[in-house]
């Protein structure tokens, strides 16, 4: 029983940050039709920025709990700095051309940002452990967990909830849904599709950076993060269905649990269990667990 | 002489909608048959069944006596049934010449060769008469997207004719074509088909076209054939007038 609980809880925690990151990727695809391979780099930049911010903040004498705000601020900074720049500055040049080309452009961006990150922050790991221990420990099913990990779970739930609310109950959300559903019609009806694009893309960057910022306290922030993250979030997005928020949630859980199970039961399978799951799902439902239009129903 | 096409009691429903009800007709070699009827009357379903796109729930389709019921479009076309499409189905990034070469290549034995050049002499020899019959020669190297609608229709039909079919199904050949162009278009089509023995079934909404080019007319309503005969007689038929043409008296 303990074993199952361990796998389940670890899987849930893993799924949380994965959801936050992957839902950004899937939203960007749903609205802009871009499969952003550089999404993992944005996560990494978020993590590095947060680590730097945290490092700076905790040398001062501000209240320790405000450190969490630093994490959020880091994500916001990355989003604002890079989102509009990437979308307006580069990606929009390829909208009239083939989807595959856009993927290649984001692949080129991945290569560029990978080295740029290394050039800016160097090859050595960064740590941002202060916020990690602030909330103390929790005991569940007789096992000890760091309470921060459940903050992550809470953050994921909050993100999911806000997204649902935002997409379904606000005007902007309706506009976004309209664009996802039919870009041409939306344009014809007067929706400023360009603005929606920039907004959604920047929001996607924010989510990636947020995932990175809030994971930073748990890990050592070093080169190579982006590759792991993009591989995982890509798998989640494909399993869940390109463009589906519900799908991203379910798939994140699936992937989180699969990885957790692999780590505890057969560590050597960790690297490919995710792709096995992905291939398995695609073999039966090539469009993923939820189709894009499911987005309307949340 | 056996009919080139014989259908026996074809029946097809899509859920609650019965699209074909006990359709039994015959078409003879070289005949020009017009199919009329309102939208949803069953003309397109009929054509789809005969060309293999849909399997009927009941009934048979016989081509020159051979049972082709339920065969896939690919096999049906190899048996000698070709069709054109209401919206011309062309290979959009290739030239009209290449479109026809592919159709020819697939229709001749050894067509899928990786060795024989696409522009092999044998195929080119067949290409030229085809181009000129259908008036396509001036357009042979043009971009499909820039072709006038009528030319696209002709290309679509020319491609269907490469297989030297026994039966040709034309799905609304003049739809989408400007009114003044309809007759000239049909003239070209019928002239191109003239010395072949192919039986032609064409779906049409324009009664003038039907009256002028069809030897025989089948009127569809509610999945059933409600009239079958010479155009003048069918068009005067009371049921046809009530359910199809809407002409009074």
């Amino acid at each position: 029983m303990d074993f199952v609980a361990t796998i389940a809880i670890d899987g849930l925690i893993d799924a949380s940050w994965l959801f936050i990151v992957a839902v950004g990727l899937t939203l960007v695809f749903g609205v802009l039709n871009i499969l952003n391979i550089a999404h993992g780099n944005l996560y990494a930049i978020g993590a590095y920025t947060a680590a730097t911010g945290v490092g700076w903040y905790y040398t001062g004498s501000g209240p320790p709990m405000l450190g969490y705000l630093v994490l959020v601020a880091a994500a916001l900074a990355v989003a604002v700095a890079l989102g509009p720049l990437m979308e307006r500055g580069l990606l929009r040049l390829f909208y009239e051309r083939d989807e595959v080309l856009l993927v290649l452009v984001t692949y080129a961006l991945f290569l560029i940002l990978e080295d740029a990150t290394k050039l800016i922050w160097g090859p050595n790991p960064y740590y941002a452990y202060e916020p990690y221990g602030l909330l103390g420990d929790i005991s569940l099913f007789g096992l000890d967990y760091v309470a921060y990990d459940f903050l992550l779970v809470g953050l994921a739930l909050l993100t999911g909830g806000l997204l649902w609310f935002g997409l379904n109950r606000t005007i902007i959300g309706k506009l976004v849904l309209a664009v996802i559903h039919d870009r041409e019609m939306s344009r014809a009806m007067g929706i400023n599709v360009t603005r929606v694009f920039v907004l959604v893309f920047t929001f996607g960057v924010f989510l990636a950076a947020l995932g990175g910022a809030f994971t930073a306290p748990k890990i050592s922030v070093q080169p190579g993060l982006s590759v792991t993250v993009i591989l995982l979030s890509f798998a989640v997005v494909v399993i869940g269905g390109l463009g589906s928020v519900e799908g991203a949630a379910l798939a994140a859980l699936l992937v989180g649990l699969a990885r957790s199970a692999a780590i505890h039961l057969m560590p050597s399978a960790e690297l490919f269990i995710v792709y096995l799951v992905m291939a398995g799902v695609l073999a039966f439902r090539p469009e993923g667990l939820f189709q894009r239009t499911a987005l309307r129903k949340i | 002489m056996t009919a080139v096409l014989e259908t026996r009691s074809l029946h097809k429903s899509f859920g609650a909608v019965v699209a074909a009800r006990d359709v039994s007709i015959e078409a003879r070699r070289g005949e020009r048959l017009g199919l009329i009827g309102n939208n949803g009357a069953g003309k397109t379903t009929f054509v789809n069944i005969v060309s293999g796109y849909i399997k009927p729930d009941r009934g048979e389709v016989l081509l020159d006596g051979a049972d082709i019921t339920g065969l896939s479009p690919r096999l049906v076309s190899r048996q000698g049934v070709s069709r054109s499409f209401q919206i011309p189905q062309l290979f959009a990034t290739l030239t009209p010449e290449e479109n026809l070469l592919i159709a020819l290549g697939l229709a001749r034995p050894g067509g899928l060769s990786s060795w024989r050049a696409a522009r092999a002499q044998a195929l080119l020899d067949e290409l030229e008469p085809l181009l000129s019959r259908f008036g396509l020669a001036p357009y042979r190297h043009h971009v499909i997207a820039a072709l006038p609608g009528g030319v696209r229709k002709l290309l679509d039909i020319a491609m269907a004719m490469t297989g030297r079919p026994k039966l040709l199904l034309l799905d609304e050949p003049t739809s989408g074509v400007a009114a003044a162009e309809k007759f000239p278009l049909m003239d070209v089509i019928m002239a191109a088909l003239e010395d072949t023995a192919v039986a032609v079934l064409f779906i049409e909404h324009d009664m003038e076209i039907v009256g002028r080019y069809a030897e025989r007319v089948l009127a569809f309503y509610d999945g059933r054939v409600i009239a079958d005969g010479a155009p003048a007689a069918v068009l005067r038929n009371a049921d046809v007038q009530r359910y199809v043409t809407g002409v009074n008296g």
Partner: protein
Amino acid sequence: MNAIIALGAFLALALAGFLLPGWLVFLAVVGFAKGLVALGLILLMRGGLVSFGQGLFYCAGAYAAGLAMRYGAIGDAALLVASGAVVALVLALVIAPLLAGYRGIFFATLTLALSMIAYGILNKTYVLGGSDGINLRAPSFFGYQPPNSAMANYALFLFTSAIVAVIAALMRRHFDSMSGLLSLAMRDNEIRAEYLGASPRRVTVVNFLVAAGLGGAGGALAALALGHIDPEFAFWTTSGEFVFLAILAGHASIAAVFLASLLLELVRSFSSQYFPNSWQMALGIFLLLVILFLPQGLGSLLRRRRKPRELPIASRAEAPP
């Protein structure tokens, strides 16, 4: 005709390989090997399918050759390359039924997943070398064992050039043939092709198998050139490079594929030598520049959402309805 051009190209390459410095010749071998894989991918793309997982076959070919050399005591280059191609082909035969029904981005992601599974498995399988891989010794050529590394380099180059010349000629023949044209047609309108009597599934499978075979052959050649095999051969970035090469070269000119591949190796080599900490960035910038400024290479390959080509239209220029 093709045969004469191919022979001429081979002789020109043989001469060039003799005159040019060893490091360039080595890069050319690696470039040509990858070019073979990219050529197979172009074949697939002409039929409308993009594979993001050709690394699977590239890796399969490399490992087939590497393991045959290490554990099978086979040293002949021709045998090794052949075994690479065959193993990749068999692998493709096994997975083709799974893939043949899919198109577009689903086909792409499924191939990606399969290649990453292979990567993951190889990484953790220590018998096959694990993440370190296996080192290979120099191969022999029909009984001839080169006495020193310079000769080995040149011999491998000649061997590779010969293979490339033959394959290029065959491919050119195929592209100009009816079945080559058919692939293009099916990419445009699969249903019409079916109505004309073609079998899209069959064409897809054949293209897939040939692409796999070429991938395997390329992988084996690369393995022999690099003297090393490791799971990176199946990593998604490797597959991504093949896609990039295919895009860069376009589907019209076969020579362009190998030229592009050589160019890519040069850029990579140059960048990693002079900007070791930012060669990836250099590569990325190179990619972006190519995508932005080389439409002729990119032109006909990606037609799906393109605007129609501008061609002069003679006389009756009636507007389409």
